[in-house]
């Protein structure tokens, strides 16, 4: 199914964009919202993301990563560009790191998924912060080290550890199960 989708994407078949949107639109919107911190701007960024995916669909190489990773990179770069505009600078003060950390996480978690929830919640704030800054906000590890005052080596170790913790929840399951968990977590 994924292969079919990739072929359609390469052939500039518009239905591929519709399917990608259905599968990843909400996850990408969540990321974009965290970066731009404005619903109006996030909507614009999400539109631009899928239009770019449409334009550059032929250049997607599945051997270099999953579709979501590719889309997320487009979304993140588009969102970061949006925050650099004069309009954005004028209306939004730079978010403090504390605000990012306390961005509300998923609620309404089902009791039978408490195990999953605990792992996500148990992820220490210092690891969450790194994931937020690097994965969602596109900071380089050097920038994180500079911003937080944590040595670069420590940043790198913590990123690896944080991702390792996430893999306990999502990484080694089949994509279908991971998606199911993600849906149930919502």
């Amino acid at each position: 199914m994924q292969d079919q989708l990739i072929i359609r994407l390469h052939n500039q078949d518009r239905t591929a964009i519709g399917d990608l949107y259905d599968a990843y639109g909400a996850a990408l919107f969540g990321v974009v919202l965290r970066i731009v911190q404005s619903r109006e701007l996030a909507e614009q960024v999400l539109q631009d993301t899928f239009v770019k995916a449409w334009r550059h669909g032929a250049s997607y190489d599945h051997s270099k990563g999953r579709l979501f990773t590719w889309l997320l990179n487009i979304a993140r770069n588009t969102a970061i560009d949006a925050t650099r505009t004069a309009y954005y600078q004028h209306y939004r003060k730079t978010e403090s790191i504390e605000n990012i950390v306390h961005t509300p996480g998923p609620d309404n978690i089902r009791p039978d998924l408490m195990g999953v929830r605990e792992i996500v919640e148990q992820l220490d704030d210092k690891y969450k912060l790194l994931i937020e800054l690097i994965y969602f906000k596109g900071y380089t590890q050097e920038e994180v080290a500079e911003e937080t005052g944590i040595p670069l080596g420590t940043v790198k170790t913590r990123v690896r550890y944080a991702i390792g913790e996430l893999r306990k929840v999502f990484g080694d399951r089949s994509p279908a199960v991971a998606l199911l968990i993600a849906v149930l977590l919502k």
Partner: protein
Amino acid sequence: MDIQSFIQSGLLEAYVLGQCNAEERALVEDMLSRYPEARTELQSIERALEGYASANAVPPPAWMKGRIMDLIDTEAPTAPTAATPALKSRSWRWLQLLALALAALAGYWIYRNIQLEAEKSTLEDRIEELQVQIDACRERDQRMEKMEQIVVLLRDRDTRPVALDNGKGTAYAYFNPVRHAVALDIAGLPAPAPGKYFQFWAIVDNQPVSMGMVDLQAVAGWQNLPYLENAAALAISQEDNPGGNATPTEVVMVGNIPAG
């Protein structure tokens, strides 16, 4: 670099996070092409971050997908087959709506016209009916006025009844020398012979003087007639000519005016 230390290095994580420089990226892609373990490791990292993003998903507004598809359609000359039907069906839909609206308007207009036509004819009938009633009222009014006049005449002490006798019955005329009034009670007259007309006469110095034709349709059954001074008698003749004759042809009724 052996595969285990490569996996431990954190380069794969940096690669997924888009943190690698060109040199590192080339190394990672080389390792990925050679070691299936590296690929498995990469996919595991990707799923972990993908799962985390999905867990923090926020549903975009419902209109978003349609907007994106529209944007793609407007900038995709390579896929005109997909764009045209959407546009065509949209304008077609507008045309359908327009036609429907016009049909509804025309329908209402026709319906309203029929309704107004019906109302108009009802009103015309009503006007006619009222006209008939008005005519009837006017007629009744004339009759009342006439009867009031007659009552006044009959109550007058100077009025003298003139009995017109034809041998079979009696009709009455009323003569008032003070008021100079003469009235004939038509209701007391017999019907004239077929094709014949009644003419009224006053007898003065034994000579008949025509007072005009008797009007059997007179209002309220009373006919006012000209007054003639010194009349001694009144008479009614039967004539062939509807306009009357200079001298009576056949006198059918006659009566003397009583002396005051």
